[in-house]
């Protein structure tokens, strides 16, 4: 049964330095608040997993929480590069980042295998590409029925899976809708799970196309706008300006460090952070 708690307590209780942690949300419902809390609590040596590491992983990597990244596409969607990610990979700056690189189809198969209690997933994929030359977790496998050669990828079983969702009900069942990504798969493939939600409701909306039962979730925290600057379908839109502004913050390590100090370490909660962000926007507009 999921425990209703604060985000700070959920993160402190479920994550340890050195863990493998997956924050999912396929451009939608990205758990930014939870990522910030991981930075705020100064975890180190995490193996971070995510299909589409974007701005939140740039923040996590730049802040020094990660030793390894397992992923399939790393960029700032619609804008360009993740400079903290690139600096780590291209220049080992400020520290090296080990990478384990897949395709989306491969990562999806790995999560499904993890959620299904299977040791590996199978797909038609990667054949002829250079990915298997550099990623040891891509191996050919012969179908025992047809003799056909397919590709096997090992199950993903993170220590902790984290998602954001629109709603939980009072019993802790989670409901989400819009683009679903691998939200259900990451919860079911992880040993422990944390879900942040926009709100607790007496009963889940009929729009909820994915419902995750309370008893497979460890902790639920109510964090309004917890996916900002990504979006929560039906609650708020994507803050495209933030993604565009991130380019300049991310490009310069000093600007980045100062941003993390002020916005993450300089705030106690995500609500404080959002207030600070709103104040910064007001100042920017009035000057």
């Amino acid at each position: 049964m999921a425990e209703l708690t604060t985000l700070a307590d959920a993160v402190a209780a479920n994550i340890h330095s050195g863990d493998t942690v997956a924050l999912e949300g396929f451009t939608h419902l990205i758990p930014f608040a939870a990522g910030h809390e991981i930075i705020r609590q100064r975890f180190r040596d995490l193996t971070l997993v995510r299909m589409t590491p974007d701005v939140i992983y740039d923040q996590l990597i730049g802040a020094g929480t990660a030793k390894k990244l397992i992923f399939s596409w790393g960029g700032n969607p619609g804008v360009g590069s993740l400079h903290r990610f690139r600096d780590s990979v291209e220049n080992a700056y400020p520290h090296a980042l080990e990478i384990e690189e897949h395709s989306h189809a491969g990562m999806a198969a790995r999560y499904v295998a993890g959620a299904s209690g299977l040791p590996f997933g199978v797909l038609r994929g990667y054949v002829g590409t250079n990915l298997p030359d550099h990623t040891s977790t891509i191996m050919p496998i012969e179908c025992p029925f047809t003799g056909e050669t397919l590709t096997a990828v090992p199950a993903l079983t993170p220590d902790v899976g984290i998602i954001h969702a629109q709603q939980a009900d009072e019993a802790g069942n989670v409901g989400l809708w819009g683009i679903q990504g691998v939200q259900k798969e990451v919860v079911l493939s992880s040993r422990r799970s944390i879900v942040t939600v926009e709100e607790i409701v007496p009963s889940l909306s009929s729009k909820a196309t994915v419902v995750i039962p309370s008893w497979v979730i460890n902790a639920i925290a109510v964090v309004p706008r917890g996916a900002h600057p990504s979006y929560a379908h039906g609650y708020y839109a994507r803050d495209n300006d933030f993604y565009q502004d991130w380019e300049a913050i991310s490009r310069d390590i000093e600007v980045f460090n100062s941003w993390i100090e002020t916005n993450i370490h300089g705030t106690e909660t995500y609500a404080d952070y959002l207030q600070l962000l709103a104040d910064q926007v007001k100042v920017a507009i009035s000057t």
Partner: protein
Amino acid sequence: MTLAEPMLDLQAPTSDEIMTICAAREMPNGTVCFVGIGLPSIAANLARRMHAPDAVLIYESGTIGAKPTRPPLSIGDGELADTADCVVSVPEIFSYWLQAGRVDVGFLGAAQIDKYGNLNTTVVGEYDHPKVRLPGAGGAPEIAASAKETYIMLRHNKRAFVESVDFITSVGNFHGNDSRNDLGLRGNGPQVVITDIGIMRPDSVTGELILTAIHPGRTVQEAIDATGWSLRVAPEVQETAAPTTEEISQLRKFVGRDSA
């Protein structure tokens, strides 16, 4: 602004607009198209607004039959879900829909392409010591493998059109001749490469890309000069039809340039 419409015709299309319009023309009505973000997405949507109203656009975020009114900034914008016939999970889009062979056309961009249409979106330089770390594979490898056909569009210059790509992220005609078939990939691979200078199509035997058309105002020599390998040119190079007023107007309406 009220002045926008009359001024529209006076503005000549940019080279990106010509590329996008030519790419859109390639897509037959009714096509089930797995769309990459950026220019391919704009081209596929232009096709849907012009001659291909029954095209089914699939985005890797799991939106099937998306009908966006504006170019999505990310592959998972809310409007894609709002306008889709259905929204499925990421594992489902890649397994039931793409891998199972339900996609006619995969519409891709890339950072690098070689003469056999292999695509690189992973690294420039060595993998372990990259000069430029690119975003990576995303959905492209399996789109290029499993879609019945692949259309590719990218801007034509020597940094992009290289003799051999630094990293094969997505397989085109591999090393030419029967080498793609020998890999056992189910899709037929690249059918057309649309650039801002012209159009290339693979030789039916060798799989090598051949310049078959150039856009109005461009020359064969420009295409040769912008290609990093010794570009073969078809015996008769066509000139692509100039963009129509309707095409330009629909494209600008979609990207929101008509109010500029």
